[in-house]
Every structure is written in C-alpha cells, then in structure tokens.
C-alpha cells in the first residue's frame, strides 16, 4: 500500500517536474513568472483530445500534433503579448498581469469550444499492467516515467551542450551583451517558449491519458503546484525544478497516506513554506537572483 502510494507519487512528481521545467525555462531567460503555463498545459491536454477523439489519430501523431499546436500557442503568447511589452520596457509586474490575462483567455476559449463539463479522454499506451514487488505498474505509468526522463535528458543536453543552449544561458545572464555578440535574442526567447510549450503539451497529454479526463480548469491547481515546485527547487534552475517536482509529488502521495486525502492538496505549499523559511532561495537556488516581480 505504502510502496504503491510512493510509486504513484513518483508518477505525479514526473508530471510536476515536466511542468515546473516550463516555468523555470521562461523564468531563467525572462525573469518572468509565466502564470499562463497552467492554461497552456490545459491547452495541450485539449489538443491531445482533439487529435485522439475528434481526428482519430494514433498516439504518436496525437502527441506531435499537441506539441506543435501548444508550442505555437506559446509562441503566439510571446509574440503577441510579451514581446511588445518588452519593447516598451514594461515593468515585470505588467507582464505578470498580462500573462494572467492570457491564462483567462486560453482557459475560457477552451471552455467555450469544448464545454465546461469533464470530458472523457481515450486510454493511451494501454498495454496492460504488471506487478513489481507488490506495486501495480500500468503501461501508461511506465510511459510517463520514460517520456519524462527522455524529455528532461534532452532538455539538459540542449541547454548544456548545444549552441542554442549556450545562447539561452547567455541571455539569462546578460541579454544586452548576448545581443552584441550576435545572438538572435528574439529567436532564442521564442525557442524557449516553444520548448516550454512542448513540455506542457506532453505533460497535459500524459495526465489526461492517465486519469482519462480533461476539463478546462485542470491547469489551475496543477499549474500552481508546479510553480511551487519550480520555486522550491530554485526557480530558473532546471535540475532544481525536476527535484522540486518529484519531491512534491512524493510528499503529496505520502500525505495522502498519513493525513488523508483532504490535506494532501496543500502539501506542496506547506513544504514550500518550510524550505523557504530555512533557505529563502530554494533548494538549489543562488542567492544573487536579481529580480523584482
């Protein structure tokens, strides 16, 4: 029972990690809390639904379809809303409110198009289940872990070992100097949004396949928890977000066992509280994050 819960928590943690990385990527480069990320995740789930249930595509084309559309949505947010603001030299809080507005727009557009009721999502990656030492493992859970590991690994490789990744790290340190040495800052920012959108789409698809449900407010709590996870690990630091996400998933599952389901909702925040009291910059955060939100 306990080991099963821990395993389930790990799966949940993977999803949080995928989402938290999206927050961290954008924060690292723009110093912006991307409050629309939860809504983008919902959009990803609905795009998956569109592909799977309405267009009757297979699993892989559906994921690609969702990734493409969600990435596009994220780029649109950047191009249409954030870029003009940056060029105006807007304050950070202005952008924060703008993306909050965007999240309302996305959520409610989805609600208007697909309706406000919970919709069934087809089973994905259903190849049966097996037991490992008393823990029931389903194929979708295996897929979630695999996809998370592969995706986060790829992300790590991109940021650490490619020229684009180098450019991303440059911009997060000093955008002006990056621009002067010939980095296409606009493109790199768009790229970051594409990647963060892709992560959100995959997380959305996986979660809806896991619970076989999609609804337009699914991104609110998940988004907030992932946000807490990103801050817990030290926002802007990718490995920190992954650890934060998995930690929160695990603690939530444990809290369900120990205190019961109704208290598990707030576990993420309680942990965040405690960690920030002791280490104000998050688990892996640097103290000199110069930012004002």
């Amino acid at each position: 029972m306990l080991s099963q819960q821990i395993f389930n928590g790990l799966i949940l943690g993977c999803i949080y990690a995928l989402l938290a990385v999206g927050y961290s990527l954008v924060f690292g480069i723009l110093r912006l809390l991307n409050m629309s990320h939860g809504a983008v995740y919902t959009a990803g789930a609905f795009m998956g639904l569109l592909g799977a249930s309405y267009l009757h595509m297979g699993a892989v084309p559906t994921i690609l379809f969702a990734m493409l559309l969600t990435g596009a949505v994220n780029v649109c947010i950047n191009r249409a809303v954030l870029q003009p603001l940056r060029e105006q030299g807007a304050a950070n809080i202005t952008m924060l409110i703008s993306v909050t507005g965007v999240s309302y727009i996305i959520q409610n557009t989805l609600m208007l198009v697909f309706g406000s009721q919970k919709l069934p999502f087809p089973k994905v990656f259903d190849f049966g289940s097996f037991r490992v030492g008393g823990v029931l493992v389903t194929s979708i859970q295996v897929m979630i872990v695999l996809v998370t590991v592969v995706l986060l690994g790829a992300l790590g490789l991109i940021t650490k070992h490619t020229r684009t990744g180098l450019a991303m790290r440059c911009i997060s340190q000093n955008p002006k100097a990056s621009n002067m040495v010939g980095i296409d800052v606009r493109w790199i920012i768009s790229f970051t949004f594409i990647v963060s959108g892709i992560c959100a789409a995959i997380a959305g698809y996986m979660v809806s396949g896991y619970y076989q449900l999609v609804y337009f407010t699914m991104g609110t709590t998940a988004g907030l928890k992932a946000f807490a996870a990103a801050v817990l690990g030290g926002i802007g630091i990718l490995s920190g977000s992954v650890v934060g996400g998995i930690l929160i998933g695990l603690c939530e599952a444990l809290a369900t066992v120990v205190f019961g389901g109704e208290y598990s909702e707030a576990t993420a925040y309680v942990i965040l509280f405690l960690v920030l009291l002791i280490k104000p910059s998050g688990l892996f955060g640097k103290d000199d994050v110069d930012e004002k939100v």
Partner: protein
Amino acid sequence: MKQKRFDLAGFAGRYKLPLLLVLLAALAAVPFLGLSSYVVRVFCMVFTYSILTISLNFVTGYLGATSMGHASLYCVGAYVGALAATRAGCNIWVSLVLAVLVGCLAGGLLGVCTIKLSGSYMTVTTLAFAQVVTMVAKNWTSVTNGTLGIKDIPKARLLGAELTVRNGGMYFVGLGLLILCLLFSSMVIRSKYGRAFIAVRDDELGARMMGLKTRNYRLLGTVISGALAGLAGCYYAYLTGYIDPVTFSFDISMTILTMAILGGLASLPGSIAGAAILTVFPELLRSLDVYRYLFFGFILVIMMRLRPQGILGSVKAARYTLPKGVLRPAAAMEQGKEGT
C-alpha cells in the same frame, strides 16, 4: 517634443475638494434613489473590494512585493467575523474590531514567513499561505464547519434597527468603513512610515543604508494590510450572511491584484477605481456569463499594453538614470530587447 496628454490624476489633484464633496454627496444619495437591492449590493461589493485593494496596495503598491494570496487575509477576517457573530454572539462592531485584530495577527504571520524573501519567492509564499489558509478553513470542521461554510450570520444592528442591503444600512456601513480606511491609509502613507515603505520598495539596500530597519517596515506593511483585509472580510460576512472556503479562492486573490494594478499601483483613488470597474463590469456582463472571464482576460492584456501604470496611476517620477555605462540587470535586459 512632448505630447500633451490628458492627465486624469493631475486633473483630480487640482480640483480635489469640490470633487470629493460631490462624490460624497452622490454616494450618500445612492440608497435613496430607489435602486433595486441588487444594485445596492453591487455597491457594497465595490466597497469591500476597494478596502481589499487598498489593503493589498500596502504590500504590493507601497512595499513592492507582489502578493498572490491576499484572499487569505480576507478569508481570515470573514471567518473571524462570522464566528464571533454565530458562536460568541458579538454584534457587528465588536466583530469588526476582532476581525481587525486577528487580521493583524494573520498579516504578521504572513510577514514573518516572507520577511527573508523577495521577488518570486515572496510571491509564491503568499500563494502558498493562501492555499494553507483555505485548507484549514476546509478541514478544521469543528470550528469552520468545513466546506459547508458558516450559515445564518445574524444581521448587523444599530440602536435596535436592523441594517440590511434593502434599507441601505449595510451600504452606509460599507461606505463608512471605506472612508475610515481611506483616511487611515492616506495618513499612514503621508507619515514617515509611508515614506519608509516607498523607500524600501524603490531600493531596499539603499533604505537599509539610510538606517531604516527595512524588515520592520515590511512587517508593519503586512500587518496593516492584514488589518484592512480583515475588516473587509468581516464586512463581507455580515453582508452576505453566509461564507464558505470556496469564496476565498486563488481567483479572488488574482482579482484583487488585478484591481490594484488596473487602478494604478500605490494610488488610493486608483484602488477604488480598479475595484469599482472590475466589480461592476462583470455584473454588467452577467447576461453574457460564459464570456465573462474571456473579456476579463482581454481587458487585462489590452490594459497592460496601453496603460500599464493603471487608470489613475501617473508616471510622474522620472526614472533615476545611472551614470553612463552602468546598467542594472533589468535595464540591460530591456535595452537588449530594444536593440534586436
């Protein structure tokens, strides 16, 4: 060439006294116009949200720390008011005082939790605080009655007469509380404390160098904020007669924050304007209920694009320019984007 623009804040500043008197007279007349009690209730909600927005402004506007959990302090006030009324049988005035006191405590607790933090860390902690408060309200069933909420909060009374929305009593209570809040806030902001808040917001390190105990001021700011939010919460509890944890969700926190920004941060008239617009507008859109939040989102996005300082916020202060060659990271960032 400087383009000449109509400066609303400047205009209001020049004709302050007559404008205020006209406004007060107009407001005092509202309940006697024979409006439906629904309209009067909307006015009451505007008062509630105005107080909340002013209270948020102490943290976000004057101290510069974005709070995404302001509904928590509101929630505390409402529960204290409701419990004082239903369990201890207090009248509205005692409840209000209690709510303010407990609001101070809650604000102080939030302040202690966030005192070491800045920026996003501070923001997410306020958010976490709000979630924890909601969880307590939901699960501490023996006191808060859980998700069912507290029903049958008695009506407010004054000299034996029942104050309701219908007879305008609650309207005047709300108006009175709002005026009290405004007086108190403008007094605080013009005192040395207010100037200290602004100094902390603009440059915390600099303020500390000037000998300000910045942490004490930040704590004081959250305590004041908690007190005002508690007041608003208690008033709300008496106004509706029923509260439950769902009323004080994350959406409410964001709504309050949006009101503050829409009206103009660090501006008291702005707070009221923001609260009024974002309370009345959704009510007008009630017939288009499904599109309500869609419009809401568009308003936010468009508003931030066209007038990011808010409706009544003025961009009076020229930004301090650093000596040549010295760039703040944030400024460097903006310039970097401009250059592309």
